[in-house]
């Protein structure tokens, strides 16, 4: 790990460690958080209005995307069984 760290220049080189499917799933959350922050920041007049709006938008996006994922998974399972 130390030799990798010495060789690795962030941005110049690619991520040198393995990136598991679990990490890929977790990377969804910072993405959604940043989208929620920017989207809400275009809707408020003052920064003080931001935290509540960001939390609501973040939860909405996570829940609805999660719902779509579960729905598609169930549909996929159903189609596999019928064919």
């Amino acid at each position: 790990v130390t030799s990798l760290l010495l060789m690795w220049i962030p941005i110049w080189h690619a991520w040198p460690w393995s990136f598991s499917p679990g990490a890929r799933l977790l990377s969804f959350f910072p993405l959604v958080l940043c989208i929620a922050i920017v989207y809400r920041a275009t809707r408020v007049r003052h920064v003080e209005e931001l935290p509540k709006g960001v939390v609501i938008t973040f939860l909405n996006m996570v829940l609805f995307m999660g719902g779509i994922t579960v729905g598609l998974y169930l549909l996929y399972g159903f189609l596999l069984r019928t064919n």
Partner: protein
Amino acid sequence: VASAEPAWVSALSKAEDSMAKASVSADKLIQTAVAGWLVPGGGHFVAGQRRLGWVFFIAISFLFFGGLVLGGMKNLVNPTTNRWLFMAEMGIGGYTIPLYILNHMGGEIRPEDLARLDYLQNVDPQLYLKYVSPYPAADVAYIYLVVAGLLNVLAILDALTRMQTGGLPTYYREIVRANEAKASSQAGGQSS
């Protein structure tokens, strides 16, 4: 006895005051757009919305550099391998252009070579993986970079709107509600 003024009247008059105070010279609008294009949130700084500018700067820069850390710049700031990704990244010109220039200044791999099949068939896999991340990190990096570039376009448009309206955002609920109240009040007046 005079009746109390409806709430929408004061909300609309506040918005009109704010817009009247706004300075909207073409030079200032160009400065706002260019500043926002160079640095995320830069347009908000020019428009006098410094705290919102910091919010845009942190959120968009995190996505952009997070994507680059995962994927590496050789393949991801490279119009020869993915011109659509590069176009989206150009939403933040102040980050993408210097990185594009830096990309051509050194390294063991030339960015153009990554688009050549004969080079990819013969390149040392270890060297390739040093500069280009494989699936799934590459997928995440692509998405982060595309989203960062496009979100910055949104931030630039928001800065321009705030500049023109004296700090009001694109969709300000108070104005929308006031306009709805005004419309229903006028419809009520006509029907009676």
